[in-house]
């Protein structure tokens, strides 16, 4: 009886702690962003000015004449600091979507390979042992998912950025400059630290997780479904497509997990994206995501309003990630990886 009571208390305490942590996290972020909410209101979400410091400028009349005092010196005025999260939200949205576009086909292809092809591809060694290629690839994919993001960031900075700047981006930029209709994506200067490189690093980082989850989801497709389509004269590809269709909700969940990871990713992307609050059509312009903005400025925020604005960005990011995770969880767990009859 006694030990039951103690253990009962312990597990309840654990469950409650998680809830309290979550609630206090939201509460602290919300309370911290009140200043910013009061000052900017909903405009915070649509303004693209991010100016942490007050600006001293010469005062001008409405027709543009400089206002002078009695001595003839220009009168100075102070424009207060202003914060708007639009470039960061835009940067997060665009880099995540581009990363998904690149990563999803690759991941689904890899998952299908692991389920449909790799198990039958076990080369036989001279001594009769068979090399379980599928298991090795699965292991490597899970290993990739566990690599700390700073490692991806440093690889991006030292390998990908120079390569993008000197090889891939000039080529793409030439195409954008010469193909009619794509001119809006042309850039005058290439730095390599831009939206495209950021998205690419994100794509590389989310391939393992999407592959691993969709492999498990595809493994749960009943053999009867595959055989059912084959028995009706489906080709190998058509039966693969049938697998994807059968597990579409679970696969969508896998993609949402990838999206959540891409949107929340901080270290790697802040090293390669350039960190300038830009909203530009060209993929070769430096940009900023919500997480890279936070990583760069939190430690340097000097005014109350600056801190408050950063906390509001964090709140938006938290709510977004929460939404992605809830949707993903519902789709994967709720449906058991497939559609139930």
């Amino acid at each position, binding site marked *: 009886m006694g030990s039951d009571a103690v253990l009962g208390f312990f597990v309840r305490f654990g469950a409650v702690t998680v809830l309290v942590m979550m609630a206090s996290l939201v509460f602290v972020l919300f309370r911290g962003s009140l200043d910013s909410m009061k000052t900017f209101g909903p405009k915070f979400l649509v303004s693209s000015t991010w100016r942490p410091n007050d600006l001293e400028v010469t005062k001008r009349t409405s027709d543009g004449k400089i206002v002078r005092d009695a001595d003839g010196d220009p009168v100075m005025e102070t424009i207060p600091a202003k914060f708007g999260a639009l470039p960061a939200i835009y940067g997060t949205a665009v880099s995540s979507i581009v990363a998904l576009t690149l990563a999803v086909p690759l991941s689904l292809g890899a998952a299908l390979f692991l389920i449909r092809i790799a198990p039958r591809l076990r080369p036989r060694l001279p001594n009769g042992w068979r090399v379980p290629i599928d298991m090795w690839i699965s292991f490597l994919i899970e290993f990739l998912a566990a690599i700390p993001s700073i490692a991806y960031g440093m690889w991006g900075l030292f390998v990908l950025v120079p390569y993008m700047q000197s090889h891939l981006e000039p080529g793409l930029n030439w195409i954008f400059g010469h193909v009619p209709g794509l001119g809006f994506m042309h850039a005058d200067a290439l730095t390599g630290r831009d939206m495209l490189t950021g998205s690419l690093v994100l794509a590389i980082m989310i391939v393992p997780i999407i592959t691993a989850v969709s492999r498990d989801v595809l493994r749960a497709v*009943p053999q009867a479904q595959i055989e*059912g389509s*084959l*028995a*009706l004269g489906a080709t190998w590809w*058509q039966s693969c497509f049938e697998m994807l269709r*059968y597990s579409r909700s679970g696969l969508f969940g896998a993609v949402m997990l990838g999206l959540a990871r891409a949107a929340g990713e901080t270290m790697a992307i802040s090293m390669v994206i350039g960190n300038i609050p830009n909203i530009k059509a060209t993929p070769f312009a430096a940009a900023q995501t919500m997480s890279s903005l936070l990583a760069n400025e939190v430690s340097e925020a000097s005014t109350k309003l600056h801190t408050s604005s950063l906390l509001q960005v964090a709140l938006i990011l938290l709510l977004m990630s929460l939404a992605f995770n809830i949707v993903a969880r519902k789709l994967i767990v709720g449906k058991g990886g497939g*559609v139930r009859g």
Partner: protein
Amino acid sequence: MMQRAQTTLTHPSDPPAARPGPKPAGASVNSNPAENRAAASLPVVLPGVAPTDVHPEVDAETHILTVDNFKLAYGKRQTLHGINMKIAGGKVTALIGPSGCGKSTLLRSMNRLNDLVDGVKIEGDMRFKGQSIYDRNVDVIDLRKKLGMVFQKSNPFPMSIFENVVYALRIAGERSNARLDEVCAKSLKSAALWEEVKDRLHSSAFGLSGGQQQRLCIARAIAAEPEVLLMDEPCSALDPIATQKVEELIYELRGKYTVVIVTHNMHQAARCSDYTAFMYMGRIIEYGPTEAIFVRPHLKETEAYVTGRFG
């Protein structure tokens, strides 16, 4: 009748006419559980050397599918030992036998579904209308369209009823809506499902009951216009009423299609098949008209199985 090796297999000593009908010779054994157990574990003489006992009626039919000394192994486990079988066109042929005797494997070999299984080894061949099934140049996709299949557990796709039925046409690239509508209605009518679903063709197939789902799978197989329907225990997951409907359907399909049905349910085989093959340990032991197999089988092993004394 074929010559048999008398050394290993025993014939019933009585002539068939003198046998007491469906009642087994050893009926008294059934009353005593202990002896019954003994009968169940009775080492049915291993069919090692004896050829299949094929009744002459089978040979007299026109055959659509023939199996020529077909052997199949999963890895090191030999599942089928040199099967020879001729299947009559337009008739219903049942494969019966205890679990693991290879009847499903034989059925799945007919449309080469076993190709999917890792480590499968195949010898011998089958012929469909004289054409080899296992030849290197066979178009498997085309073959599977001619030999439709219905599975043990209904496996509708996660789509509407309509899309399920026309799946075979869709993947073959059929685009005409009029044609799809026509085939859908015709197939559902053939599968005796039309009246129940005609008002909800575009709702999900998962909304149907188990029996309806299985009939949907039959409709889906029929829509591909196969010549042979392979049915792998189509009623094993159904309740008696749904089973009755599917059995009636199989009876209706006779003549239009050649049906090969694997079943564990001996009454089912007796009710809806023309010919029955009794399989045991990867071999066909006896193959003949259903009535003969159930009422006056040639072999004691067959009799023991159909009367429920082993298996």
